[in-house]
């Protein structure tokens, strides 16, 4: 048992997450500058982004649509009239020295996100999802600091969970689930390396059985799935060592240093900002049009959790189903293939073909599933050829490879190459008879108890038929002919 596991016999960790997600809009949250990653520093600015005197914000209608899609997809209660507030703190990456955010009247409350723990779905309650704007970036070169405001004003949603997670794995899974969901909805690229999805974690510990929450610390700057798990684990261990040795956890904000693999104090409670929130007088209340909300709801895709349930009900294994719903394009491919195939009962078989052959071929070709050269209907047709015994699974893989490469229809490949499986009992029986007759010595050996020789006969039949013999039928006929 690790040190942490030992401590966790008596103690319980409580984790809540705050995840910032950049919304994939063309322009910024409150002004017309373009949103783009990696543009030359300070090239995506305008008077509003720069916080120039006299410049004013107007909220991006597209950003609202995207945020509403997330609100609906998380079954949140949508506040039809929400409000922007100013959150004040001085920092050079924020030219107005306040951030436009939402405070006591956020757009969404009481939603849920379904995440996977093992093969099971688990529901995580959300406190709120609110709208805000991103800050720019400071870089420090020696004694000089540079400010790049390209990211300033990019629209964000902040997703805040209830403190309902208890392990570092759960925390990481939640972020994976949210990441998957926003990409599924097409509302964010959510590329963590580009900072399009960023995570802060609130961590506390308490004795098992205790209802009250312990003093929490806030961990900032944990920006990969791996770091989340590592940083939370590290923080739980740090707090437990503290309380076990009679110390006390201080309310503070800690910065995670991924390189050093540890966190350090960023600011203590005493240094905490008073953000002096108040409703932004430049922005009237944000009113959601019910008709627009209905339209967004109607346009929502089936969500990953629902699709996971549908696949597992059709017989797909939990692990496979989870992989299939890990990406919208992959799951859409799966659905299209099932539809083209026509029989939901074949879902498991189709899924296996997608997860093994298709993903392998795509990886080798360095292509996305959305750009697969082999369309779902073609895969479905191929699967049918295998299922109805026209070709063997082994030949099927060859046909798949050729169709993937050339685009030729599987049936055409099978016809051209003459690789239809021989499933005709009379025809295959004649071949079996010929093979056994020609190898009487081995037949005697097998009859005398040398089991290994059975494989020899299968090989001979395959050789004779160019691999086209139906393996199940071949086995049955050989057993019958060889006498056991």
């Amino acid at each position, binding site marked *: 048992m690790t040190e942490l596991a030992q401590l966790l016999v008596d103690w319980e960790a409580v984790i809540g997450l705050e995840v910032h997600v950049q919304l994939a809009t063309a322009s910024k949250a409150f002004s017309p500058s373009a949103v783009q990653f990696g543009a030359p520093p300070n090239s995506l600015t305008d*008077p509003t982004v*720069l*916080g*120039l*005197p*006299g*410049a*004013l*914000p*107007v*909220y991006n209608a597209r950003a609202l649509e995207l945020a509403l899609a997330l609100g609906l997809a998380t079954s949140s209660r949508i506040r039809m009239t929400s409000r922007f507030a*100013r959150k*004040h703190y*001085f920092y*050079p990456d924020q*030219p*107005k*020295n*306040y951030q436009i955010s939402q405070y006591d009247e956020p757009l969404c409350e009481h939603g849920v996100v379904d995440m996977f723990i093992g093969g099971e779905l688990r529901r995580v309650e959300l406190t709120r999802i609110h709208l805000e704007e991103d800050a720019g970036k400071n870089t420090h070169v020696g004694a000089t600091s540079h*400010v790049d405001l390209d990211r300033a004003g990019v629209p964000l949603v902040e997703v805040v969970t209830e403190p309902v997670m208890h392990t570092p794995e759960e925390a990481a899974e939640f972020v994976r689930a949210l990441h998957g969901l926003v990409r599924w909805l097409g509302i964010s690229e959510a590329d963590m390396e580009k900072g399009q999805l960023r995570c802060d974690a609130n961590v506390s510990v308490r004795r098992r059985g205790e209802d009250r929450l312990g003093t929490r610390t806030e961990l900032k700057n944990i920006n990969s799935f791996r770091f989340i798990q590592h940083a939370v684990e590290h923080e739980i261990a740090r707090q437990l060592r503290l309380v076990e040795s009679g110390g006390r956890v201080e309310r503070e904000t800690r910065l995670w240093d991924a390189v050093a693999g540890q966190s350090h104090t960023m600011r203590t409670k005493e240094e905490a900002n*008073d*953000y*002096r*929130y*108040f409703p932004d*007088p*430049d*922005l*009237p209340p944000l009113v959601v049009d019910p008709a627009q909300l209905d339209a967004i709801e109607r346009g929502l895709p089936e969500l990953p959790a629902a699709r996971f349930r549908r696949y597992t009900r059709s017989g797909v294994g939990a692990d496979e189903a989870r992989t299939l719903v890990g990406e919208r394009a992959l799951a859409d491919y799966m659905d299209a293939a099932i539809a083209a195939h026509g029989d939901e009962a074949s879902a498991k078989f189709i899924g296996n073909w997608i997860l093994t052959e298709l993903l392998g071929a795509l990886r080798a070709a360095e292509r996305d599933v959305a750009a697969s050269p082999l369309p779902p209907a073609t895969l479905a047709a191929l699967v049918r050829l295998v299922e109805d015994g026209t070709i063997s699974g082994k030949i099927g893989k060859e046909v798949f490879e050729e169709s993937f490469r050339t685009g030729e229809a599987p049936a055409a490949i099978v016809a051209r190459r003459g690789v239809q499986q021989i499933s005709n009992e009379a025809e295959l029986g004649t071949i079996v008879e010929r093979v056994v007759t020609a190898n009487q010595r081995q037949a005697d050996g097998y009859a005398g108890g040398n089991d290994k020789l059975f494989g020899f006969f299968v090989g001979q039949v395959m050789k004779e038929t160019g691999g086209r013999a139906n393996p199940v039928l071949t086995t049955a006929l050989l057993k019958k002919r060889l006498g056991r």
Partner: protein
Amino acid sequence: MSSTPDPYASVTATARAIATGEATATRVVDAYLGRIRNLDRELGAFLAVNAEGARAGAAAVDRARAANEPLGPLAGVPIALKDNLVTRGLATTAGSKILAGWIPPYDGDAVTRLRAAGAIVLGKTNMDEFGMGSSTERSAYQKTRNPWDTSRVPGGSSGGSAAAVAAGLCAASLGTDTGGSIRQPAAMCGVVGMKPTYGRVSRYGVVAYASSLDQVGPLARSVEDAALLLSAIAGHDPRDATSIAAPVDAYAAALTGEVAGLRVGLPREYYGEGLDAEIRAALARTAEALRERGAEIVDVSLPHTAHALPAYYVIAPAEASSNLARYDGIRYGTRAPDAPDLLALYSKTRGAGFGPEVKRRIMLGTYALRAGYYDAYYKKAQQVRACISRDFADAWATVDVLLTPTTPAPAFRFGAKATPVDMYLGDIYTLACNLAGLPGLSVPCGLTAGGLPIGAQLLGRPLDEATLLRAGGVIEAAVGLGAQRPRAVS
């Protein structure tokens, strides 16, 4: 127009003279530039004179006319702008050292509209720093003198714009009004000043003081000129989320000279203790003049009036403390030298860059918004604000406009208001209009025995600027200053 253009000519007359070729825009601009050179050393109305830009603009108007191209309604008319209106390529300081040297890369919406109408930007006028003041004494740069008596203030915060109009240093001007900053100096300088309905003129490109109260408006020598300017600058702007989408009335056409049947309310709270006797008498004459012309004079009450001042001095400083956070010396404006770290950079820059009144209001506002006190101050003040709005809404059931004094006293001497609260009390008649978002107009209605102008204030329903201008036109004709000019400049 003869060989020397009349500096007191109306906007209409100047525009017409240029359009008909009777005068050139160049001559008009040169005449005003000459007058500024001669008189403004003493008056101090301008912080910056846009001589080169104005001449270039005038030349362009003259060329357009020579080529028979269509001219805008204000083509060649020289307008002065309060220095909190952002002007592309022209320094904009808002009367503060902290913005010294800032050359904006863009024009605000009102400025854009003025330029589109053919107006010439003559220069930027002095003001109380960030609009925080009622005398223009709080400018970080210079004093502005009242053209009627140069030992007195012009009012404020748009004191430079009011003095420039009164002294004939421009055809008209724009100011901003957060708690009376157009109407009060207009009254003290004997000119017409209008604060439009909140949202009628875009705030895009207005250096913010208190965002929920700020509004741009005209200062002019006649009601008609004010109406023409308002027509030019009003209208919906998608860049200002608080801008109103309603169509803009034809304000000049509304000046029928008729008030028959108009119900004019006299709110008793505006005629109480502390009102100067001469102003009280002038307002009585004004009401009588309206009555004689068929208006119905009605006594009304706005019971929450006394709470406007304290509510204003919570809301405006709270918003200001937020709006002025951006002045940190990082990207623009003045930065304190030799700061050892970021915190020192902020405190030294802001410590040196802001004047005492600005610091006072930032501190007031910061206090009002701090955690745990929001409900007791800011929220409470907003509730008072709602009560004040309701008072007015109730009044509109029985009257069409309200007639009040603009100020409790005429222009005072420099340094006369010893404490900040003395200064704040000068705004008691103008604040409520901003809190309720209503249009307000100040029109000259006579002079004191000492020769100081008196302003009558008309308050109206939201977006009913036309009625205010119509009634204001009647007051101007009946009890206005006529051809009387400020002594100091005649």
